[in-house]
């Protein structure tokens, strides 16, 4: 299954929120939607879910316009919230029923997910009695219980402790393996980097960068080496100004051209006791800051 957003435009009043936004997400892969606050992520997600229509542009599933009565969408909004004063089982089955399940199937699915997330003991408690992290796990059930084809997770990891984050990662990986389209929106780049095969960076309503993660990374000039060694000082003095020390103690060597990679690597391993030497690939964080940050400065002007 392929989900496409084609040339989406959207304005609220005078303010243009999305300009010519096109994305493509495939089943069995996770897609990362990145952008600074107010870049248009939530608006894109809402258009994708049909909460409101785009001014122009199309949302397609396998090339045909999306039919919301056939395609199930699970959504974990960034602004979390359910009914604080209601019994957890009641409200979870309510949301599953709203998505078209019958009562019996809804209860069964909710019970399965409560079990899967280790929340069965809270089944008949009121939501407000739970801790924030546990409330978030309950909210996650609303996004998963109706077995949707598309799962949209907006900042799913915020507020989770490492154990719960691990649990969520397993669940998400499982859903990806089952062929679902998983759409991530997050500021926590390490998670995006871990999951997402494709990313899009939105900047002020425009797609600043879109594509497969490893292609994006490989497209950066491969003219820097990262070196870890006990003899860092010796290397530093040998390479002079082309070598700098990074914050985490590794060395960064700037090559004259990418072709120098092999000879320099050989020289390093032969001359010094080197623990690690590799071509520098920018982290998603670096890419994000570059693409989302530049325009941010423009915006501030």
């Amino acid at each position, binding site marked *: 299954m392929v989900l496409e957003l084609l040339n989406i435009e959207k304005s*609220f*009043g005078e303010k243009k929120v999305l300009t010519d936004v096109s994305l493509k997400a495939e089943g069995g892969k996770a897609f990362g939607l990145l952008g600074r606050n107010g870049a248009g992520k939530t608006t894109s997600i*809402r258009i994708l*879910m049909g*909460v*409101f*229509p785009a001014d122009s542009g199309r949302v397609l599933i396998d090339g045909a316009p999306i039919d919301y009565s056939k395609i199930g*969408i699970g*959504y974990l*909004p960034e*602004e*979390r*919230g*359910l*009914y*604080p004063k209601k019994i957890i089982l*009641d409200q979870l089955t*309510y*949301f599953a*029923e*709203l*998505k*078209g399940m019958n009562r019996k199937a809804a209860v069964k699915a909710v019970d399965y997910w409560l079990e899967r997330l280790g929340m069965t003991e809270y089944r008949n408690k009121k939501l407000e009695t739970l801790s924030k992290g546990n409330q978030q796990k309950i*909210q996650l059930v*609303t996004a998963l219980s109706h077995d949707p084809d598309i799962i949209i997770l907006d900042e799913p990891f915020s507020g989770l402790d490492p154990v719960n984050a691990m649990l969520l990662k397993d669940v998400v990986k499982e859903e990806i393996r089952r062929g679902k389209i998983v759409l991530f929106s997050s500021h926590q780049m390490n998670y995006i980097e871990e999951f997402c095969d494709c990313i899009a960076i939105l900047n002020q309503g425009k797609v600043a960068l879109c594509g497969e993660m490893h292609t994006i990374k490989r497209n950066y000039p491969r003219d820097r080496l990262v070196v870890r060694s006990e003899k860092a000082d010796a290397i530093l003095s040998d390479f002079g100004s082309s070598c700098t020390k990074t914050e985490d103690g590794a060395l960064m060597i700037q090559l004259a051209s990418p072709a120098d990679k092999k000879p320099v690597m050989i020289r390093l391993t032969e001359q010094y006791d080197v623990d690690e030497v590799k071509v520098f690939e920018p982290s998603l964080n670096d890419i994000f800051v570059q693409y989302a940050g530049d325009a941010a400065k423009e915006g501030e002007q």
Partner: protein
Amino acid sequence: MKQFGTILKFELKNYAKNKAFVGITIFLVVLIAALMFLPRIIALFENEDPSDDANESLSVMLIKADDPAQAEMVKETFAASFGDYNVQMTDEEIHSIKDKITSGDVECAFVLNGPTSFTYYVNNLSMYDMNPDIASEVLQQIYQMNAMIGGGMSAEDAAGVMSIRIDGEVESLGKDQMQNFFYTYIMIFALYMVILLYGQMVAMSVATEKSSRAMELLVTSAKPLNMMFGKVLAACAAGLIQLVAIFGSALLFYNVNKSYWGDNGIIDSIFNIPPELFVYMLVFFLLGFLIYAFLYGAISSTVSKLEDINTAVQPVTYLFLFGFMVVMFSMSGGNVDHLLMRICSYLPFTSPMAMFTRIAMSTVPWYEIALSIGILIASTFGIGVLSAKIYRVGVLMYGTSPKIGNIIKAVWKA
């Protein structure tokens, strides 16, 4: 449709689980029961009272008449006319009579200054004190009797002339305002209570979902039209259940205690509402309720904070109060067909009250009724759809309450 059913069921369950809602319903049913059992309870106490000292428990009325001949006649007639009082003659001075009244030993006193004049003394003059009027009438009759006897008529003939009864019958070809007044009043008042109460409940329910951010998930899970109609119809059903409980128990307990109520015209007229009027009552009640509930729901969806609801819904409340006032004043004025009422009986926000009042208390041609109901149904549906649109636009607007112009623009585009 299935989704609508799910929402309706969920919202109805909320009312059933709402302690305030259940509490108020039970309280009102108990209150009605107590009210309906009241005559029976009073009768119970009255029976225990030995009738001997009934005379002592009556309050004392003093009569002072200087003319002995008048005093003799007055004592009997006053005692007969003021059955609620222990009527006693007195020769005391006026100031001592006054003292007795202010001290509370004596309830009131008549001092007769001659055959055609008296002074009435009472401590606190009640608004409904009819004693001077009765005394005037009694004295007038005595004077007339005396005059006739003085003119040569026998006492029996004179009494016959005085007690002559005129038979008269009234046949109303249209409506009897007096008879219909009470259930019209009750219907208008019930509508008033229910709209304000349930309108607020719908508003609260929408605003709570918005402020708890459950809305984020709801708008992506359910169609706004289903959401709005589900919520409003659930409130409507809950309101009807409550009313049926209250009026049903009233009817039940009234019938249980019917013999104790005697011939109470007011209560009889309430329970003997003509069937076609009852149908009109239901139609106008439902439509009136729905149109206001939709408005309350739509407006509260534009509010971000719970505490802003009251200010936001004020215009709707005033609109409703305007209709309520017009109808109430027209009803007590006895004229329900003046121009303002005619206009109000077609405007969708006032017609549920105005048109029903006119049907109940006056004669309205069928096509006027049909037109009014037609306008009301169309606008209720229109407002329902519009409120669903406002809801969809409104619920995702956070922060300060948006201006009406912005909402209209956004709804137009949506």
